[in-house]
């Protein structure tokens, strides 16, 4: 009998569900729901302060040359996943059927496959925009939020496009927020320790690396004096509160973990998580996080009749069994 719950039983990102998506596919649907929930939640929190959170399917980015501020800004359309239309012929990494699936003689395709879509066509981003309090008109974009997918991380088919898009955003003076809940691919932030080894690039796994991160790149006051804040966190660790710089020296602290839990709770695939079994591709986690996963599974198993609640705290008993993982 599987042990399932629609409540995320991890303190932070659910390693079981994330592993499932990375091993079996289906991430775009979760991504899409998560973006919608982020838009709702961030929008509700920021609206009274004069910001609107927009579904960034298309955005006019205005790039201003700081050396020549009086010149007209260079304007161009920034798609939510820029450049991807040049690559329609590439294979999709979506959870499509790899071979035609015949059911009672009927060819069954995923809609994505049947429509000839590719993953990044479906992925949306969010733009946080100023709103003029006097007339309610939309102002400039001050921040851009991306939930990363496997394809736009290093080594992914859209990485080059995504890297160019990141640069164009910060060159335009837009704060970039990146949510990376995918531990298998290398981080998009240069200089962050690599969680997994990459023999082809001669990179060893760093035992201090963490599997998840939220990065906030604030290109103010200038591109070269701005900074990237990296909120890295471990398996079964709470998602940190993240400071989002906005316009006019304003800053808002947001709980991305609460929105993740909401998306998890509404995700049909959450019921595919069986806490009695190790996550897919368990070996892709380092020893510390493998211990954390097993410790969490034990805690969930012990509370298996109360899984409409949770997540449950780790008790001294588990700490004794697994040792002080945090000090390893």
């Amino acid at each position, binding site marked *: 009998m599987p042990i399932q719950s629609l409540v995320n039983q991890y303190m932070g990102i659910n390693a079981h569900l994330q592993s499932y998506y990375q091993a079996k596919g289906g991430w775009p649907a979760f991504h899409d729901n998560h973006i919608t929930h982020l838009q709702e939640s961030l929008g509700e929190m920021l609206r009274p*302060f004069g910001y609107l959170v927009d579904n960034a399917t298309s955005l006019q980015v205005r790039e201003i040359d700081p050396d020549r501020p009086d010149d007209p800004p260079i304007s161009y359309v920034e798609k939510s996943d820029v450049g991807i239309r040049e690559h329609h012929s590439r294979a999709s990494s979506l959870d499509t059927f790899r071979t035609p699936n015949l059911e009672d003689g009927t060819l069954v395709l995923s809609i994505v496959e049947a429509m000839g879509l590719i993953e990044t066509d479906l992925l949306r981003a969010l733009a946080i925009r100023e709103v003029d309090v006097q007339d309610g008109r939309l102002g400039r974009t001050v921040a851009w939020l991306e939930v990363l997918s496997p394809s736009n991380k290093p080594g992914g088919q859209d990485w080059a496009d995504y890297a160019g898009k990141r640069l164009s955003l910060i060159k335009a003076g837009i704060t970039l927020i990146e949510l990376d809940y995918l531990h298998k691919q290398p981080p998009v932030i240069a200089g962050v320790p690599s969680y997994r080894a990459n023999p082809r690039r001669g990179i060893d796994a760093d035992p201090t690396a963490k599997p998840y991160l939220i990065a906030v790149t604030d290109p103010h006051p200038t591109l070269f004096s701005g900074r990237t804040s990296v909120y890295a966190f471990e398996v079964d660790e709470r998602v940190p509160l993240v400071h989002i710089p906005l316009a006019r020296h*304003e800053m*808002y602290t947001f709980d991305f973990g609460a929105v993740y839990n909401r998306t998890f709770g509404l995700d049909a695939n959450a019921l595919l998580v069986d806490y009695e079994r190790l996550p897919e591709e368990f070996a892709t986690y380092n020893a510390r996080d493998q211990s954390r996963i097993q410790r969490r599974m034990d805690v969930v198993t012990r509370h298996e009749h109360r899984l409409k609640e949770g997540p449950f705290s780790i008790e001294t008993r588990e700490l004794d069994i697994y040792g002080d993982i945090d000090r390893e």
Partner: protein
Amino acid sequence: MEISIVNRAARLLTAHTETELFIHLCALLQSAHDHDFHVTLGSVWENDQAALRIAIEQPMRQYTDSQIILLWKTTHVFTLSEAGSLNWQRPNGQVITGLVNIQMALQHIDDNAIEPLQTLLA
């Protein structure tokens, strides 16, 4: 028949019991869709009694030397105990207890009947 927000506010002042006032307050807050505040209604355990609690959060700006911090802060808390006593914790931390005292503190709502909620939450 729809009761106007002004009438709902007026009922706070004419309530005969603390429970009645609490119920009218719930109705007043629920009817205010276009206002910038968040309301949470929940049960709590306090002083060995169960109670219903309304917590109102409002958007605030906190100014520091280099930044303006945007935050949602709990400004008003109304607690109705199982025994029927009501208290109102205001933004300055002052706690007003009892029907008469709360209605006295709410009296100024009547003078600003067009925007009773803004007046209440000011």
